[in-house]
């Protein structure tokens, strides 16, 4: 039953994705700047024939509706076209960059959840204590601090001054393991290449912290406030009246309920982490989608921009679906 509902939701994503495809196609062509001009460099260095040849190659000489038709026809078959600048299929380029972004997003989410939930719970249980006030002050700092600035501070402190952690890229040179999923943490485990795994993890730490800090702060606050609400509920008193230890009362009976709003926020934010990390990827030279998006926009690489935006939209759809499914497990009142 549940899997049928999930399939339904995935099918419902198809019209959404087609809508996204049409919109992004139009908006990209509305922006000023011509890809062929940008490729040709300064005016007059190439002949009119060469420009025309390129325009023909990219189908830019055709009327807009014909271009759209060609684009949509390809999209339906899973072909996002060839990149203007890199001259290879957009799907291949994205296929290389997407795992890097996913790995970073989950690294950041893991870091955030790992600390946010204990902090939020502890603050709620010890409401108005020094620890509570301190952690809420820090979370305020975390929310208001720009991520790129925090990233640079991390690089300076842990990378440059202390030299503890690598500050750019996903891996040092010299490692060689077969790429199965593109996610280094998984590929290295599959290849049982432990030194490479360690190296990949080390590379992931600083960007994950930089990217996850705001999420940590938000989640800690959400968890704290919903926990405060839940701790006042009758079922918490009943749990105590049953003779349960306070730790079990809090972790089993209260937290399960308090996590419902936390998961909502996390779900929305995972989408943001996947789609909004251009700055962090640039600061840490992380070869992911964010950097690809920035580069493709500067070079007006239409197919690549379209591909990246469509992937972003798709990750939002998927993240929402995952959250909705998670909901049904954590809150029995909700069905898909």
């Amino acid at each position: 039953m549940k899997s049928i509902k999930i399939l339904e939701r995935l099918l419902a994503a198809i019209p959404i994705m087609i809508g996204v495809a049409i919109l992004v196609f139009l908006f990209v062509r509305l922006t000023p700047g011509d890809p062929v001009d940008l490729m040709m460099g300064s005016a007059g260095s190439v002949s009119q024939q060469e420009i025309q040849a390129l325009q023909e190659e990219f189908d830019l000489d055709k009327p807009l509706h014909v271009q759209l038709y060609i684009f949509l026809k390809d999209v339906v078959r899973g072909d996002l076209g060839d990149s203007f600048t890199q001259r290879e299929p957009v799907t291949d380029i994205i296929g290389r960059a997407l795992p890097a972004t996913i790995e970073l997003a989950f690294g950041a989410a893991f870091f955030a959840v790992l600390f946010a939930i204990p902090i939020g719970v502890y603050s709620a249980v010890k409401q108005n204590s020094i620890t509570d006030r301190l952690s809420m002050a820090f979370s305020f700092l975390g929310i208001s601090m720009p991520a790129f600035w925090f990233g640079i501070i991390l690089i300076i402190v842990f990378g440059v001054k202390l030299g503890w952690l690598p500050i750019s890229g996903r891996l040092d040179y010299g490692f060689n393991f077969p790429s199965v999923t593109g996610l280094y943490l998984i590929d290295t485990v599959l290849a049982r290449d432990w030194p490479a795994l360690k190296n990949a993890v080390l590379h992931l730490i600083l960007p994950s912290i930089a990217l996850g800090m705001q999420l940590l702060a938000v989640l800690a606050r959400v968890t704290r406030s919903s926990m405060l609400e839940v701790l006042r509920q009758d079922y918490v008193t009943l749990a105590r009246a049953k003779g349960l230890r306070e730790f079990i009362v809090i972790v089993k009976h209260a937290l399960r309920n308090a996590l419902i709003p936390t998961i909502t926020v996390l779900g929305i934010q995972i989408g943001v982490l996947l789609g909004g990390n251009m700055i962090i990827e640039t600061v840490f030279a992380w070869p992911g989608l964010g950097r690809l998006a920035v580069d493709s926009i500067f070079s007006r690489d239409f197919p690549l921009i379209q591909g990246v935006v469509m992937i972003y939209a798709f990750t939002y759809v998927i993240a929402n679906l995952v959250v909705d499914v998670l909901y049904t497990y954590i809150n029995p009142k909700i069905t898909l």
Partner: protein
Amino acid sequence: MLEIKNLAMAFETERGLVRAVNKVDLSVAEGEVMGIVGESGCGKSVTLLNILGLVPHPGKVLSGEIMFQGEDLLKKSKKEMRDIRGKDIAMIFQDPMTTLNPVFRIGEQIRESMRIHGLFKDVKGGFFKSARKHAEKDRAVELMEEVGIPSPETRYHNFPHEFSGGMQQRALIAIGLSCKPKLLLADEPTTALDVTIQAQILALMQKINQEHGAGIILVTHDLGVAAEFCHKIAVMYAGRIVEQGRTEQVMDNPHHPYTQGLLRSIPKMSSKKDRIEPIPGGVPDLAELKEECAFYPRCAKAHDKCLSQEVPMFDAGEGHTVRCYLYG
């Protein structure tokens, strides 16, 4: 079995000490049903929470003893209290809709008390203690049947939101009964339910009292319920017990002006009067209570002596006690 002596507790607030329970004496014998009646905020429910040691922050016990089976519960360690809660003394709450945990199945919630109190800890065998789990489940289903939940085998796997209010209260009673407690604390167990269900739940509790021999303290603001169901009644006003005695003593021959007022304010089908007779005035602010009679401002029979000092409990004969100078 349970004897509360001179219990006083207060909440520390910015406005000073709010004395929610003031020099309360209560006793419940084995198999006895004790009713505590009074208006909202008079300290009935807090008295129950005190027995379990579950008074919420910033509540503090100021003095007194709560003797249960010869031992003072107020002197017990946290661990010892946890062993008593849910096992020897169980509690049933006012609002079943908010008292069951919404994210766990009914059966699991009934089973939980048995597990933590090791009811079937001697049952060995099976993977992951499956034999013990089966024993617990069988007992839970049995309990659900006993409290009147239809098709308990199926209902065992339901979530609380799939139960009606009455069924939820039955499930909560099953939780309370799971470890065969000697004392059941019922905090207005029927207030949130509609009238027909109220009667069913009360009948169920009466059956439990008779068949299990469990003592019950029933907190209620419904005098009718108390009259029908309790062996003894204590009337509370502003944190103090103002009258206590056997049900017929208190109901048929109320002594304290407050009890008399309460009984007069019950609408009666038989009476020809158009209006019921309310007690004039309102409940006093517990933060501003002094030692004098708290009912003084609302009392028709008040005189100067009531203000002069703390009113002691007077014996009106045959164990019927009243906190009023009219009987001194």
